């Protein structure tokens, strides 16, 4: 586990703003990435995540704020002096160079001698599993192979920070999952600082030590993946990261560490969030679909019990997703490992553990 204390910040972005004409793409964004961390900027398209990454790389000049890498302010350094190699979404392999020449390019520019260069290129190609493809041209490679060349080309120059701009988004689902694992393993082995941009929440959750979720040019919340997932601070976050039930509720009572909320005809005592709350306040409950247990009506429920009627369902493979009408609201409920015959229909009873209910104060 990398050291996540702020003293070890390797990339520091402080109060950075970027405007394109009248549009503020990045609005006073600050965060720190510890050395050796796998950090991810996650958000919908247009949220400013790629712009932020490109400012770290030096492709854009911030209109305000500072960017530091390894304790050095880099705002005035040109791209090629920053030590921030980048892996591009479309890989940007040089089509007129072979795999070997693509990977050797950065070393050639840095005047690394011939034998040393050959050795490092060979090692890196072996590291990403491309041995034997040295003399191919980029257009002779599959998407996954091209992606590996792009990674190898950036890794070989041993950058301070590796920047990755949605590097897996052009691959099919199966390959994406495989490369996700490889990427994480690789980063652990090298202990290199990665800053990764994606709009895919699953990718972010599975890869990262640290995630910053961005929306409309701002960081909405940053932290460990499970914090983002289970304790989102805003409804946007809850909704963006995974499927979620967002249920309007009202604060009935506040106690030390707990809060009593009322929704519809139900009351529940749940964990009190960090946010300021007062009695009578309107809040929203965030409940993940997998937090329920679903059973035919009449089966006694543990914890918070709700009864409802199934409206429709979708088979997702590993789970069966139901839309259940409880009072006058639709809830999304997942049943894991549904099996072939366990399909439910009609009235059901739902049970929910109170510690799985998260309160969002907005």
């Amino acid at each position: 586990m990398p050291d996540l204390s702020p003293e070890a910040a390797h990339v520091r972005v402080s109060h950075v703003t970027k405007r394109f004409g009248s549009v503020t793409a990045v609005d006073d964004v600050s965060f720190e990435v510890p050395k050796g961390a796998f950090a991810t900027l996650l958000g919908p398209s247009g949220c400013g995540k790629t712009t932020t990454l490109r400012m770290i790389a030096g492709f854009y000049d911030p209109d305000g704020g500072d960017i530091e890498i390894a304790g050095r302010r880099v705002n005035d350094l040109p791209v090629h002096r920053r030590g921030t190699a980048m892996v591009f979404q479309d890989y940007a392999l040089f089509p007129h160079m072979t795999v070997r020449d693509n990977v050797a390019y950065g070393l050639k520019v840095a005047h690394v001698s011939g034998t040393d260069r050959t050795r490092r290129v060979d090692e890196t190609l072996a590291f990403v599993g491309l041995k034997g493809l040295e003399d191919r041209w980029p257009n002779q490679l599959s998407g996954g192979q091209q992606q590996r060349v792009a990674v190898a080309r950036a890794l070989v120059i041993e950058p301070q920070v590796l920047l990755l701009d949605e590097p897996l988004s052009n691959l099919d689902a199966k390959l994406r999952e495989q490369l996700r694992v490889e990427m994480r393993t690789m980063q652990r082995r090298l202990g290199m600082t990665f800053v990764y941009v994606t709009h895919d929440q699953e990718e972010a959750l599975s890869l990262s030590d640290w995630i910053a979720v961005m929306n409309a040019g701002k960081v909405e919340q940053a932290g460990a993946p499970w914090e983002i997932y289970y304790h989102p601070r805003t409804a946007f976050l809850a909704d963006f990261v995974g499927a979620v039930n967002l249920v309007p509720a009202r604060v009935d009572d506040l106690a030390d560490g707990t809060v009593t909320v009322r929704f519809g005809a139900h009351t529940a005592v749940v964990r009190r969030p960090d946010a300021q709350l007062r009695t009578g306040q309107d809040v929203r409950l965030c409940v993940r679909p997998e937090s329920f247990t679903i059973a035919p009506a009449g089966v006694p429920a543990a914890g918070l019990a709700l009864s409802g009627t199934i409206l429709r369902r979708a088979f997702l493979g590993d789970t069966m997703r139901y839309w259940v009408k409880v009072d006058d609201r639709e809830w999304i409920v997942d049943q894991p490992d549904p099996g072939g015959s366990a399909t439910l229909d009609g009235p059901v009873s739902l049970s929910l553990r109170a510690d799985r209910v998260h309160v969002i104060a907005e």
Partner: protein
Amino acid sequence: MRSLQREPALLLALLAVTALVLTFIVYPQLQVVLTPGPGGYVQFLQEGTWLTPLRNSIQLTLLSTTTAVLLGFVYAYAMVYSNMRWKPFFRLIGILPLLSPPFVVAAAYTLLFGARGVISYGVFGQSPNIYGLNGVWGVQTIAFFPFAYQLIADALSRSDPRMEQAARNLGAGSWRVFLTVTLPLSRPGLGAAILTTAIYILEDFGNPQLIGGVFYVLPTQAYSLISSFGEYTSAAAVSTILLLLALALYLAKVRLDGGRSFVTISGRASSMPRPPVSAAVSRACFAACLALAGVILLVYGSLVVSAFTLRFPNNLQVTTEHFQYVLTGTNGDALRNTLVFSGVAAAFSAVFALFAGWLVQRGQWPGRRALDLLLILPAAIPGIFFGLGYLVAFNQRWLDFVDRGWLIIIAFVFWNIPVGYQAAVAGLRQIDRSIDEAATSLGASSLRGFRDVVLPMLGGSLRVGFVTTFVRAVTTLSLVIFLFTPPTTVATIRIYQLVGDLNWGAATAYTVADIGLAIIALLIFATLARGRISLGAARA
């Protein structure tokens, strides 16, 4: 801007490009515009001698453009839509006029239909007066319909065949699809093609000069003011009027296509097949193309026959006498000058334009819109105006130590910048910006990235710029008419002089030699480049 401050070498390169553009594009043109001075303009406008050439120019441009575009459209429609026979042959014939100076049509016309013409006198025993509006109109129609064809074919072939297939699939017949889908979709391209043809015709100097007689248009008026009267002030004013007309047409064209279409010579792949037209339409297309190709062949055929016979048409004995005359002595020198000047200029122009295109397209600094405009501006400047600008600006005593051939080369380079520049811009559009960025993020400076990554990928644009510039340099008369000196005479000047001397054998032999050498040079280049060179109009 900050990216430039961080890379001083890039800043220097940008300053150098800007300085060259200001010196060789802006400064000479300003010299012409400013020559008459406010008083000169007032006096000139009051004299009113410009009214007739202006009216003539407008009248001729309207008439010739209309007919050239009509013929060009028929040819283009047949080539793009019909499945007639002999298409490769018609394509080849359509290219021939692009490789030769437009005024050879006037020469052939005189040869065939003049007072002692092969057809007019030889066949019908008539000695018509061919000089004047009708003659120039006819000649320009024949000379420029192939250009119109190239541009229109390009515009038509850009419409997405899938749209036409969809319309056919929905039940529309081929003609209806053409009227309701193809034409509306290619309207901007067609408009731009018409305007480009109009600019070529408006700026043409050779044809009206050879057979205009007393029918003066703006370019010939400007020329005669200087060559006959040494009237620089009035010539500059007339040229400025011409420039304003051309600029107006050009700006209208830019509104339609962003100034992107040119007649270029490129390695462009042919387009997707289109839904077929009916057999009857194909037959009509074939007949029309055959007739038009026949006219072109008549023009060039008569030149070739005249070049190889003792005294066409009276003495048809085959001879190489004319070729011996044109390939030796000062004639041979002029031919060599043409090849050397054009080759050197084409190489410089293509590389410079490519680099400038990269700076403008990829850079982020204030003033890049202005530099972009200046780099396409020469496309709107008539050759006669551009040449006059160089004459006024650089024909100075203190520059006498420089060989005058360089002046012609530099004029070729900068007059043709838009061709290479647009080709570079189009090429760069095909290359994702992330390719440049990948190079810099791996530690290469911007200039290094250009050299290692962008330049090798823009070979196609470089070839288009080189070949098109070469051909335009070999075939221009108007640009060099003010710039040549006896030792720096070029082929078009010699042909023009020989036609003026009514030395038909030598003139036609010279034309054949010039076109032949240009084709050989292109073939050598194509072999060296190991790429297919095809000619045609393209949004460069």
